[in-house]
């Protein structure tokens, strides 16, 4: 691109502006490591809780969810490291980041006040997760994540109608179809 202005007409200027804005908007970055980390973490927690409920008499099967604590710590460390390394940010990068961060703030009250909603915690969380998954799919223009968002939504609806044990299996299914499959497909494209 040269720095000449004598031939730049109004139409050319507008075309240049829209072309550059499109380029900047297309520069959305994504990190599959968060999708895969949380995909595995939540799938294992769901299956672990299902296993404990079904095959043992252990009175506190929900302890398996404690694995989300190290996953959170690892995510924070990754996030800080990436924030330092990555300088070029688009507005869509920021929107995607806050979309997922907001989920971290929304989920704890749902768990804390789960007793007020008849312990329908799993379906509510699946429903809440459908939203950022779907929107991230739109931002990245990546269909498997759009389908993933729909899977979360569909599993959430079924979850409302089944018992607590089956909810765990549905939770694992939702995470496998909503996070893990799109995550690995995205990773393959990236490589």
């Amino acid at each position, binding site marked *: *691109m040269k*720095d000449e202005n004598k031939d730049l007409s109004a139409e050319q200027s507008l075309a240049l502006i829209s072309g550059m*804005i499109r380029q*900047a908007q297309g520069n959305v970055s994504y990190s599959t490591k968060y999708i895969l980390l949380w995909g595995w973490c939540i799938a294992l927690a769901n299956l672990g809780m299902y296993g404990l409920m079904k095959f043992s008499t252990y009175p506190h099967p929900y302890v398996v969810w404690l694995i989300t604590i190290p996953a959170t710590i690892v995510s924070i460390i990754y996030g800080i490291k990436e924030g330092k390394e990555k*300088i*070029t940010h688009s507005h869509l990068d*920021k929107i995607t980041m806050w979309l997922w961060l907001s989920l971290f703030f929304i989920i704890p009250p749902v768990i804390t006040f789960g007793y007020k909603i008849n312990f329908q915690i799993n379906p509510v969380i699946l429903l809440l997760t459908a939203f950022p998954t779907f929107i991230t799919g739109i931002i990245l223009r990546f269909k498997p994540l759009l389908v993933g968002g729909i899977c979360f939504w569909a599993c959430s609806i079924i979850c409302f109608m089944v018992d607590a044990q089956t909810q765990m299996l549905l939770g694992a299914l939702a995470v496998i179809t909503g996070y893990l499959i799109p995550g690995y497909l995205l990773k393959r494209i990236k490589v």
Partner: protein
Amino acid sequence: MFKELDPLLHSQLRLGVMSLLISMEAAEFTFLKEKTNSTAGNLSVQLDKLSEAGYITIEKSFKGKKPLTTCKITRKGIKAFEEYVNNLKDYIKK
């Protein structure tokens, strides 16, 4: 009566840079160079002009041992860009 287009923005490379920065939180020099398909020398001169006018801020730092130049659009830059686009629209309507 049409307003004159801001001569600082009515240049291919500077307009390209401003159009990229309006959509970004911040951008590295290498990113701007790649997207505008310009040479480092030319880009550097044009970035200095935009910075002197207060349209962008340029921050120089280090990423490990490599020098890093980061550019951000300022409020003044956003206002000038919006005004430029509005004036362009007037020209096109004419």
